[in-house]
């Protein structure tokens, strides 16, 4: 479950300052819809329904495991209080490690201890036979373009809305534009030969305590991307299981 990203609030014309309150209510409502066995209405602050009845019912009881993005202190505290897992994406390993520590402390205060399976880290990956080749492949990609980066007014208005919460200095630069070498160094992207990729994966586990890795194909480079997936599956994944 994700609060979303600033550009989505801009696109759908939803006030970003209400995003956390909306998310909290939506999560409570979804959990109720998954568990309530009779039709029910919902009198919320942001959502109102007269008759909710979902089918098919979830297979898992009481419901499937829930994860939410947990990069900000507010999100980590909310996840801890609601006993749900957290996921990190579009961040760096040091930033995520700090946020995971905050989440675990908040969970401890709420009377429970998250396991490694409660923490997901999402990273893009690109594997090639050698480090040099993998690096060269990704160097060919055009720079990332995001709506909120391209329009100063949008960026300023989202910042001004309080969207990023109390830790605004960190949150607003999670996704800052960085050189490829720096992104690799920060664990934002897994790039290199299988041995290098494995080392980067181990670091994510050791520094962050993430028990689940969410891999995203880092580059659409045709045959080279297919080779990357295959190398990851045959040379990295089997050894990850031994970590």
């Amino acid at each position: 479950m994700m609060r979303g990203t600033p550009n989505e609030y801009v696109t759908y014309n939803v006030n970003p300052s209400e995003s956390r309150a909306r998310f909290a209510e939506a999560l409570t409502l979804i959990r109720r819809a998954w568990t309530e066995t009779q039709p029910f209405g919902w009198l919320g602050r942001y959502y109102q329904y007269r008759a909710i009845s979902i089918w098919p019912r979830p297979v898992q009881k009481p419901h499937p495991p829930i994860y939410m993005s947990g990069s900000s202190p507010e999100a980590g505290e909310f996840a801890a209080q609601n006993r749900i897992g957290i996921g990190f994406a579009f961040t760096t390993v040091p930033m995520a490690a700090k946020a995971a520590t905050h989440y675990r402390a908040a969970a401890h205060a709420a009377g429970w201890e998250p396991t490694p399976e409660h923490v997901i880290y999402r990273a893009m990956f690109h594997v090639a036979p050698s480090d040099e080749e993998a690096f060269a492949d990704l160097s060919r990609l055009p720079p990332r373009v995001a709506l909120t980066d391209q329009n100063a007014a949008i960026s300023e208005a989202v910042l001004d809305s309080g969207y990023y919460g109390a830790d605004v200095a960190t949150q607003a630069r999670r996704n800052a534009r960085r050189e490829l070498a720096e992104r690799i160094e920060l664990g934002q992207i897994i790039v290199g030969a299988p041995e290098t990729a494995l080392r980067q994966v181990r670091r994510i586990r050791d520094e962050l305590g993430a028990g689940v890795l969410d891999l995203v194909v880092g580059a659409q480079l045709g045959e080279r991307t297919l080779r990357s997936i295959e190398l990851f599956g045959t040379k990295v994944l089997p050894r990850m299981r031994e970590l």
Partner: protein
Amino acid sequence: MSGFVELGSGAAILCFGPRGVTPAPAHTLLAETRRVILVDAPGSKVLGLIDALGIARFDILAEGEGAAAALTLALARPDGVGAIVLAAPDPLGPELEGRLGEIAAPVLTLLRATDDADGKLPALKHGHLMYVYDAGDDMLRARPEALAFIVREFLERRELFIVTRESGVVLP
């Protein structure tokens, strides 16, 4: 006459609950369009009070422990009761629960979003369930606008309330 307080004018709503005759913010909002009568009298005196006030037809809004008084009244005066809203009702007890099937009036049960309906929802013929988000310990105080809105909707439109009449127009 003691044991009651009246607010507003219009079709009558009899209100029962732990706060007695002290109105909650939701009662005050309802009184803008309705005659709200807060009742704090033992069950045996309620019928006498209604007759003395000359109220032949009424709706009911009951909170917590007031749910039992409300449903007992509905059983005693089936022709008088229009519709009933129970806000976070307390358990009714086996005797009353055994007679719920006799209640013909539509009943909307409002529960806090943090509560579970299991075992808390009266087995009614024309019952509707609705969860109130952020209801706190006292939903009539925590969410007065929301409560007044849905109570008015249900009492005025009864089971047709299931289909909203709120306009979706954003900017006329």
